Structures are given as structure tokens and as C-alpha cells.
């Protein structure tokens, strides 16, 4: 069974909420990515989301944009990222890994080769920001053939009809974008998230994780009171960047995530 499903089932059985943690592959350098992934797990992460850097990350705010630029300065490509995940899998065979990125690197590699290589590397799913459901069928088919999940975004602007259509196509969980904006934007409005979640819950049984704008333990805690999990991205990326060295980054990330984990487990 897909590791994302195993993890979500286990969390549901234990009545716990999911902590999804995002870093950008190759940021700040190639050597840091695998140690950071292991640290994310040690610090309480349930699902690792690996950002695949792209030259034109139009949905990202400045923090993650700069991370993409730093990673690309190291000339990292999708092939290398899959190698990194293979390396991660040598020591961790159970934590789900979800790739999050943009269409073009996958288009360039070709859907068949991407899905096969990703599966062999130990990837569990993909979230492609700029492939909405209308364009997703061809990729979806190949992902499914390889047992990989396709995670979709829902937005504050998503209509009820679209929620149903997207839920029908999605696997694993739905990623609710808490606000109109880019990653790392200002704070989310918990009341409006709650209102939208009621529409989503009425239309699907899939777990819903909430991301964009969750910076600290307090916000994470208020979000898991209404959702099945939180996605932490810019806060981790920023923490890694400000640390200046891998050693310090591991400590700082541990500090951030341990607090968030504790808050959502309360």
C-alpha cells in the first residue's frame, strides 16, 4: 500500500493529526537535503514534501522563491532529486515522500519516465501546482499505473462543484490553500478556513491538510482543531536559510517542529 495511505490510516486510528513538512531539494546545497529529511522525521513529521525547484515558481512567495533560486544555482535537476530520495530510503522505508513542484520539469522528463523513476526511488505521490484537474488526466493515469498518489490543491475560490470533481480525482489527501495568495503570505483567517472546510467535508471523505500561512505552533494548533493536518513550508525553509550551516539548521528545524508537533498533539 502507498506509504501516504498507511500513514494517514495510522494517524486516523490514533486520532492524531498529520504534520506535513516541506523543504526544497538542493537548498541550500545538495548535501543538506537527505540529513534534513531525516531530521524532519525525527522532529515529528508524518509526511515529507519535497519541493522540486523551478526557474519560474509563480505560486511561491519570496522565501520559497529564493530557495528555488539557491537550489538551481547548484544545478539540481529532477533526476538528481530522485537520486536523493533513493538515498533517503536507504535509512527510512516508511515515511511518505510527496514531490511538490511545477509542470515543466515533469513535461520535459516525460510522464512515463518520471513516474517510473519516482516510484523506483521511493516517492509516494506528486502535487503539481500548475496542473489543475482539467489538465491532469494524462499525468494522473501514469501516476496511478505506478501506484503513486496525485494530491490536489483546493483554494478559497474553489466552487462546491469543483470540490466534488477534484475529490474524485485526488488520492491520499486534499491540500487546502488557506488564503488567496502565495506561499508564506500573511496570516490565515481561521474562521474563513473553517467555513470552507465545512463545504469540503460535505463533499468528500478524504483527509484535508491545510497549508499556506502557517508559521508557528499556535496557528498550527488552531488549524488542526478543524483540519486533519497542517503543512509547514516557508517557516522551515526560512529557518534552514537563516541557520547558515547544516549543523545549526538541524537544531533549529528540530526546535521549530518539536514545538509544532507538541501543539498539534495537545
Amino acid at each position: 500500500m502507498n506509504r501516504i495511505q498507511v500513514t494517514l490510516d495510522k494517524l486516523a486510528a490514533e486520532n492524531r493529526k498529520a504534520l506535513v513538512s516541506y523543504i526544497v531539494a538542493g537548498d541550500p546545497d545538495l548535501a543538506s537535503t537527505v540529513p534534513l529529511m531525516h531530521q524532519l522525521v525525527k522532529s515529528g513529521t508524518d509526511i515529507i514534501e519535497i519541493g522540486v525547484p523551478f526557474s519560474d515558481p509563480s505560486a511561491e512567495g519570496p522565501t520559497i522563491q529564493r530557495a528555488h533560486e539557491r537550489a538551481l544555482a547548484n544545478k539540481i535537476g529532477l533526476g538528481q532529486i530522485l537520486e536523493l530520495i533513493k538515498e533517503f530510503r536507504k535509512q527510512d522505508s516508511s515515511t511518505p515522500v510527496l514531490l511538490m513542484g511545477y509542470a515543466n520539469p515533469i513535461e520535459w522528463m516525460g510522464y512515463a519516465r518520471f513516474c517510473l523513476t519516482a516510484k523506483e526511488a521511493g516517492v509516494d505521490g506528486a502535487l503539481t501546482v500548475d496542473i489543475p484537474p482539467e489538465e491532469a488526466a494524462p499525468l494522473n493515469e501514469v501516476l496511478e499505473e505506478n501506484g503513486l498518489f496525485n494530491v490536489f490543491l483546493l483554494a478559497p475560490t474553489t466552487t462546491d462543484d469543483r470540490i466534488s470533481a477534484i475529490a474524485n480525482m485526488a488520492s491520499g489527501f486534499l491540500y487546502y490553500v488557506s488564503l488567496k495568495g502565495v506561499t508564506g503570505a500573511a496570516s490565515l483567517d481561521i474562521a474563513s478556513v473553517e467555513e470552507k472546510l465545512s463545504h469540503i467535508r460535505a463533499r468528500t471523505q478524504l483527509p484535508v491538510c491545510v497549508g499556506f500561512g502557517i508559521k508557528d505552533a499556535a496557528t498550527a494548533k488552531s488549524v488542526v482543531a478543524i483540519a486533519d493536518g497542517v503543512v509547514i513550508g516557508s517557516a522551515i525553509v526560512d529557518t534552514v536559510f537563516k541557520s547558515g550551516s547544516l549543523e545549526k539548521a538541524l537544531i533549529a528545524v528540530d526546535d521549530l517542529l518539536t514545538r509544532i508537533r507538541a501543539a498539534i498533539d495537545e
Partner: protein
Amino acid sequence: METTEKSSNYQAPDELGRFGPYGGRYVSETLIHALDELKEIYNRLKDDKDFFAELDYDLAHYVGRPSPLYFAEHLTQKIGGAQIFLKREDLNHTGAHKINNTIGQALLAKHTGKKRIIAETGAGQHGVASATIAARLGLECVVYMGEEDIRRQAMNVYRMKLLGATVVPVTSGSRTLKDAMNEALRDWVTNVDTTFYIIGTAAGPHPYPQLVRDFQAVIGREARAQCLEMTGRLPDALVACVGGGSNAIGLFHPFINDADVEMFGVEAGGHGIETGQHAAPLSSGKPGVLHGNKTYLMADDNGQIIETHSVSAGLDYPGVGPEHSWLKDMGRVSYVSVTDDEALNAFSQLTRVEGIIPALESSHAVAYATKLAAERGKDQVILVNLSGRGDKDIHTVAEIDGIQG
């Protein structure tokens, strides 16, 4: 003025905005609702007589349409081949074809009730056109422009500011048009409830490539009628420069079903296709996804979009409108390229021989047209879209001449 013309057999895009395998809507979920809304408003208004009456009035009395078709007699004599006609989009208000589209989209914005418009710009022509319309309609206008382009096109930046627009320098990526478009998309996703995004070229997510084409098709409709009137027949060939490709698709579209009319889209060859330093995705790229649509792109082995080079800021873009990708695959349009040097020579030649200073973008079309004319007989007619005037480029050309001379 005639505003609608149904093609008899060429029907694109389809309901999902696809031109064959190209086009579509490759954007994040947050923007889908706004695109649906735009599509719905456009579908409603594109058959609305009042809407087009208003548009035609503005095109006639504010832009100065129809733009003349000019027989470039002296250039023709100099080349000694086919007759060269210039469609004078450079004479439009604000100096380029861009205003045709901006006026149309601003009218759509008015119908959505949104009071804030945003735009991306490369050479600054679309930014100026957007700022102009915003000034006239009393709308707030924010223009995103790459830092590198701001340096190259200082005069247009000043024009936009005079018109009351806010020009935001974009410092991410290669700091050119593509990055300006990323930043405009980020603004739009954040302010989607209050903001109308006026895309300047026939690219982006559906319905933009379609509606930009439809607003620019006035160029081809006029040119077709003018050519018939002046020469008694249709042109043998059309030539237009292609960056994103809005002036080219505007000229080409009304001729697509005229099988005897050849079409040439001229990409920016920069220092030469073989050097890799150019902006010619149709000549040397492959299909991928950027800025909301599937189309030919320039990217490295990992699918990362690469920096392009052209002496002309308006052509300095690694993608191209999806309809051009489809017309290339269909073989209906031939896509060729000319280098910076060839474009600069055409710039000087047209200026000296006809007293018309063309934009560096349009100079690419002129350069190819003169090559083509030299190979063709005197009975043939070549119609070139002179998409903009060169005032904005004087500084760039002077700098180059200074270095050379």
C-alpha cells in the same frame, strides 16, 4: 467597422482553450475561478453588439484606427523584388499594436467591476498601453517590469509613471519579461477579488490567448480589406515578428483560411540560433508548460526555463502563444528567425529609405521581409506588420552605434 468574422474551417481553441495539444489552463487552483469568470464574461460579450460598438468607437476615435496600409515604394525599389506593404500599427496611439488588446481587456474589466488592473511588460509598450487606459478609465494600475528591462527602456518607465501607474521592478530570476509575468501572477492570486490582469500577449491561461487574438485580429481584418482595395488581390505573404506573438496572430488569423497566403512568423535570432543566445522557441525549443499554457519553450535539460537574448526587449521571452505552436505543427505558418544585427540593419534601412523608424521588434519582421522580397518576383505582394514605432529604442540603438562606431 466589421468586427466579427467566422472562420469557415479553422476553429480553435476548443472549449478547454486548447489549440491542438497546446494552450489549456495550467495555473494554480486559486486562479481557476477568476479564469472561469473571465471566460464567461467574454463569451457573453463577444457576441454583444453594444460591446463591440463601444470597442470600435474607441479604436476609431482614441487609437486612430484603421491604421494605414503603406506601400513602401522606396524600400521595394531598393530591394528590387516583391512589393513591400507595411501595416502601420506604429501610428496607433501609444505607438504600437498593444493598445488594441488593452482597450478590449479594459472594457472587459469594466464589465467585471474591478477597479484595479495589473500588467506585465517587457519593452514597456504593453505597460504604457495599460497605464494609458487606466488613466482614461480612472483605474488603479500596477505594472510589473523586470529590472533589466527597466534599465533598457527608461523612457517607457517614465511614460508609465507620468500616466499615474506604479511600476514595480522585478528582481527575481532573469529580471525580464518572464519574471514580470510570474510576479503579475503572484499579485493576481493575492488580489484576485479586486484585480483584473491584462495580459499583453496571446499567451497565458485560457481564455487569454483567444481573447488577445480576437482583439488583435482587427489588424488582419483591416489589412485584408486594405490590400484588396489597393492591389485588387490578397497578399502573397504575411510577415510579422513573434515574441509572445500577439501582433503576428492578430495579422495572421483573418487570413488562415486563405490557403494561398503564405505566413512567416519571425523570431528573435539574437546572436544566432547556433550560439544558443536567442529568443526563438519555435525555431529551437520543444513543448512544455509555462505561464499557464502548454507551448514551445526554451529550457535546459532539466526543464528549467533558460535566459533568452534579443536586442529587442519585447521579443526577449522564452515561450510563445500556444496558437503559434499549433500553427507551426500544422505547417500553416513558417517560423523563421533573424539575428540582432539583421534587425538593426533593417531598422537603419527603413529609417533612411522610408523615413519610418520602426521598433526593434518590428525591425525583425522588416529584415525578414526584405530577404523574402529579394527572392520573389515584382508581381508579388508582401505585407509586413509594422507593429510599433522605434522612439523607445533610440537610446539602445545609439548605444550600439556608439560601441560600433
